[in-house]
């Protein structure tokens, strides 16, 4: 394998992805700015909040003028974009804190939730999918499929509520809300306390996430078992389990990894709902708050952040394919012995 050309291939790939990310962020920024400017949310009212009645129309106008709200939309957009480009996302009106620091803090809380849910659903879903595919049409397969189809068509907030009622209210095994015990701050809580609070939302989030990866892996496993190489392996005396877990593992795992990374968008969406149900103070819950209370700087910041987050997921999937799949190295590096 010609290493230099492989490196060139990877460098070109990274450059192209960076360009794509820039274009994507620009497009999302423009679109969300248009949406926000045509929404009925008045930034001054949202900022003033409950004190709205005490503010006279003249004072309202002065604030608007001070913020440049009387300028044409295009001019406002470019001054906003310039600031974003220089890393200034503004100040969140509901937290009274720079948007970036709010996002960072909340994302760390969400990150553990999503990481746990993502790993659980990935590992269990992949295992279930392979087993179902290997023993197609057996009782095991039917049971796994029933579970997957049920979960794929069940709203996550409803599962969350059932989980809360069962494990937190009736059984009392898990806490009812929050990411750490009430009355403590994030720093005071121990690792075990945090894990205890994390468990139920993470399991809820993964329960539904398992469905997709299971069904996908099942299909890929069945296809692998019908392939020429599986027939040849069988002729060599390999058992079905041997074919699935020894020969086809890589062929099935590669697309599964891609899917799992590409599902980060759905994971984020699921986290918004799960955090709402479990009153878990992560980025998802913050998004809902920012929306309801008209915190426009924070909302726009989260939109851009989630764009990059989902893009990173897809990028990771592509990158892993580049590094692991020998068939792709050929086109990327043009190297053949």
């Amino acid at each position: 394998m010609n290493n230099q050309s492989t490196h060139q291939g990877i460098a070109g790939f990274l450059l192209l992805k960076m360009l794509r990310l820039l274009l994507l962020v620009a497009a999302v920024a423009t679109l969300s700015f248009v949406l926000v400017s045509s929404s009925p949310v008045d930034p001054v009212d949202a900022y003033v909040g409950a004190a709205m009645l005490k503010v006279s129309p003249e004072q309202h106008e002065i604030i608007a003028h001070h913020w440049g709200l009387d300028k044409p939309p295009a001019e406002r957009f470019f001054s906003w974009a310039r600031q974003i480009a220089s890393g200034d996302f503004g100040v969140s009106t509901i937290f009274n804190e720079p948007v970036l620091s709010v996002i960072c803090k909340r994302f760390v809380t969400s990150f553990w939730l999503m990481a746990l849910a993502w790993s659980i659903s990935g590992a269990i879903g992949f295992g279930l999918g392979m087993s179902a595919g290997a023993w197609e049409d057996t009782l095991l397969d039917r049971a796994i499929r029933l579970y997957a189809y049920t979960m794929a068509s069940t709203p996550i907030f409803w599962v969350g509520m059932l989980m809360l009622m069962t494990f937190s209210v009736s059984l009392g095994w898990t806490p009812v809300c929050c990411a750490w015990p009430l009355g403590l701050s994030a720093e005071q809580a121990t690792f075990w306390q945090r894990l205890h609070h994390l468990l139920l939302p993470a399991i809820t989030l993964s329960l539904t996430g398992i469905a997709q990866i299971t069904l996908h892996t099942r299909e890929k496993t069945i296809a692998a078992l019908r392939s020429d190489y599986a027939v040849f392996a069988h002729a060599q005396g390999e058992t079905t389990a041997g074919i699935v877990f020894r020969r086809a593992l890589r062929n099935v795992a590669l697309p599964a990894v891609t899917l799992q990374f590409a599902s980060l968008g759905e994971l984020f969406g699921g986290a918004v709902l799960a955090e709402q149900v479990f009153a878990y103070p992560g980025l998802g819950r913050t998004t809902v708050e920012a929306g309801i209370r008209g915190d426009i700087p924070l909302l726009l910041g989260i939109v851009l952040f989630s764009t990059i987050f989902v893009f990173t997921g897809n990028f990771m999937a592509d990158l892993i394919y580049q590094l692991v799949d020998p068939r792709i190295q050929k086109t990327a590096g043009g190297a053949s012995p």
Partner: protein
Amino acid sequence: MLDIRDLSVSFTSYSFGLKRMEVCVVRGLDLSIAPGQIMAVIGQSGAGKSLLAHALLGILPRNARVEGQMSFKGKPLTPYRLSALRGREIALIPQSVTALNPLLRVGGQVTRAALLSGISKKEAPATVRQAFVRYLLPKGVAAWFPRQLSGGMARRVLTATATVGMADLIIADEPTNGLDPITARESLGHLRELADTGKAVLLITHDIEAALQVADMVTVFHAGATVEVARAEDFKEPGNLRHPYTKALWNALPANNFVGTMKPIARASNADGCPLQFCCNDQDSVCGQSVPMLKRSGAGWVRCHHA
């Protein structure tokens, strides 16, 4: 070594979900093969050749049913015995490089075949190295992926994979398919070498000329049944051939000016009587009444009322 009597393979399928249908693909197949011999099984596409290979290895899909007597080394070949024998004493050389997993390195796949054939973990690397040397595969090839192999190399890797163990019966499924004449001859030469070391080789192909280069015996296979068993040298003189279908095949060879003497097969016959009754030139009223039995004829066998 291997003896097959009246083998039939049928598939059950459900049309429109409810109606059960049984389709018989191979019936009345007779075949026997001795150690040190290459038996060529010749048949046109769709005659059920690959099914025969899969039936011999017991790797047909679940909805297939196999009937008839098979015996291997004198003992009956039951599905249970088959699952112990395949890969160890009966090995398959598959048709194309797609039989190798595209994502795994060639060396690893050959090693796995060696382990499955009963070679111990300790001896496997040396055995695989020997197999690579035997088939003129450079050492570095072990680290390649299947897509990096050339056509001829791929054939040698497949042959190495099948013969890395000590299998006594080698089934080669279309070993010359899609190969240039030189590579095809090389591939057939390897089969001859294997037979000369005392193994039995079953060469399944539609390519009569290629088969005749190396085979000792030829079984002509049509519509899932054996129509004639002949010695390879019988094909040198068309008068020695017994069955009208075999004669027609011989006449249609490029060397014999592609003369088509038999009508094209318009429909498969599932009715009583000889499967070839609608296209055969020698047919008369007897042909429609019963399926001819396979009967001895000189050094071979023939299934025809008139031979």
